[in-house]
């Protein structure tokens, strides 16, 4: 070992150390950026947060005590629609790919799913505007939910496929051997065995679209008041952040920071929970 090292010229040793340190530095840099983001939002966000942020409606600039209660509820409603639409379709399509698929058709479905995953969110916004807003003659919670729902489908499909495939075949065989049909096996044996991964995957999926702004700009639009029902324009946290950030008022900027903090806290906590569940499960499975 030591003789080996001596044979290595100084230049090579220096290169080795320098390059390896650089990779470490890059890693550190990336992680520092994360902590800077968290730190900044924490610093500005907490300072501007107050109880009224969660309970009050937005106020005109200059008036104290404005909040974003309607945006928080609005985001919740939009995400509910998105989940109700996106998850079942994605789940069932994923079941098809994992359990039933023929070769050519499955390839096409998989390819198109990846394609949909790659479609820029702003283009999905145009689509939802043309398909929902224009025929209904109104911007609405529903249109926003549909836009985000479409965005949820591809990841729902691929997560379902992935986690169902991870279920050992012996389980399926055992179930079939006991006389269960294929459908029964899938829905009572295979899917429940993968449920943790599926639910976590869907949560990650939800967290991803929760921060989407672009497709909501011309679907859910925005609302200064509560949005009643499902066919009225609705406020949402990401759009509010955008509007308040580019406004010229200092008090609105404060609110934007507060909203940014709330949104980030929400998205990251869902994310962390889901990832911990998945990795915990992965660890037991490997064992």
């Amino acid at each position: 070992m030591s003789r080996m090292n001596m044979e290595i010229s100084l230049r090579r040793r220096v290169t080795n150390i320098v390059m390896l340190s650089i990779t470490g530095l890059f890693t550190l840099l990336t992680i520092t950026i994360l902590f800077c983001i968290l730190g900044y939002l924490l610093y500005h966000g907490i300072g501007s947060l107050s109880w009224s942020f969660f309970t009050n409606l937005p106020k005109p600039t200059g008036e104290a005590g404005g909040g974003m209660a309607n945006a928080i509820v609005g985001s919740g409603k939009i995400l509910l629609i998105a989940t109700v639409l996106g998850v079942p379709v994605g789940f069932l399509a994923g079941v098809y790919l994992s359990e039933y698929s023929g070769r050519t058709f499955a390839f096409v479905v998989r390819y198109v799913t990846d394609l949909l995953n790659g479609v820029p969110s702003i283009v999905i916004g145009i689509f939802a505007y043309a398909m929902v807003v224009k025929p209904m003659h109104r911007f609405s919670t529903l249109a926003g939910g549909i836009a985000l729902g479409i965005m949820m489908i591809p990841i729902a499909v691929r997560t379902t496929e992935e986690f169902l495939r991870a279920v050992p075949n012996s389980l399926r065989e055992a179930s079939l051997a006991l006389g269960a049909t294929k459908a029964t096996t899938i829905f009572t044996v295979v899917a429940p065995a993968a449920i943790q991964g599926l639910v976590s995957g869907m949560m990650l999926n939800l967290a991803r679209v929760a921060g989407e702004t672009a497709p909501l700009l011309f679907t859910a639009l925005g609302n200064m008041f509560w949005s009643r029902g499902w066919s009225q324009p609705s406020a949402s946290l990401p759009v509010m952040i955008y509007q308040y950030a580019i406004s010229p008022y200092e008090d609105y900027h404060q609110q934007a920071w507060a909203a940014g903090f709330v949104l980030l806290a929400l998205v990251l906590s869902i994310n962390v929970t889901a990832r911990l569940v998945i990795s915990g499960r992965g660890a037991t499975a490997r064992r």
Partner: protein
Amino acid sequence: MKASISLRGAVCHVAVLAALAGLASVQLSAQMLINGAGATFPAPIYQKWFSDFNSVDSNVQINYQAIGSGGGIRQVTEGTVDFGASDGPMTDQQLAEYQQKHGFPVLHFPTVLGAAVPTYNIPGVTASLDFTPEALAGIFLGKIKRWSDPAIQKTNPNVTLPPREIVVIHRSDGSGTTYCWTDYLSKISSEWKSKVGRNTSVNWPAGLGGKGNDGVAGLVKQTSGAIGYVELIYAVRNHMAYGLVRNSAGEFIKANLSSVSSAAADAAEKMPADYRVSITNAPGKESYPISTFTWLLVPSKINDAGKRDAIKKFLKWALTDGQKSASSLQYAPLPKALQSRELGDISKIH
């Protein structure tokens, strides 16, 4: 086993949530929500009006989204909002398109008046500069490139202008402020009229763009040597230097409530029936030349009786009580004669 229970739990949870949301919508349904969208120029006063009007009539909520004047015209034509708002009147072609699409016309209601001001950032210069129309046109055409250019220096003998490069800042989005600004430049410069023209967004010969009045204000603040145009209130609120402009009577006028009102006074007398009028470069010694009305665009036929009554009630309130809060936000209230004329025209909505 445990997993399937938690799945069932999740399903129940979703169902309860949905039911709750449904319940909430039932409880709130006594209230009427009216949606409007458009100009950012009057957005501060509209936000205040709609917030105040909600306390006048708590059953009516008017949701206004400031997406730009172009957006106001487009969305009211598409029928996706109940009313639009714009700082530039709709063109004949746009009116025809509306008529063809809906079978009835859309009405213009002037609400308040505002002004676009040239705002600048020249290191070492704090004074209010005097601009001739020729200087403004030259700057925005990209022909006057330095602050020390005689066209600017000549009218500002007391200020030493540096030979610094002028950076033109304009709006990147469709904007009524842009309409007003380019409308003015088209009137005072034939070259501008033929090369660029007037619209809510144009192909700028020079400069860089910011989104919204704020984007422009922010860029001007950050950039030394910059000149841009913003609605008066944005310049005042952001404590930005803005210049005086020479009007058609040859006076250098600072934009403020009285000079804007003065520009409107003349137009109010000769107001056409549909209220589509430009008051840039207005006559009168006191008139600020880059002033404009801002309009609400209301369909003349609203099928939902509740909405119709609410919109009419709001218009009546805005043209009377609402006018009182205009001046605190740097908007000039409408001339009295115009107010009463518009009140009469509210009955055209049916």
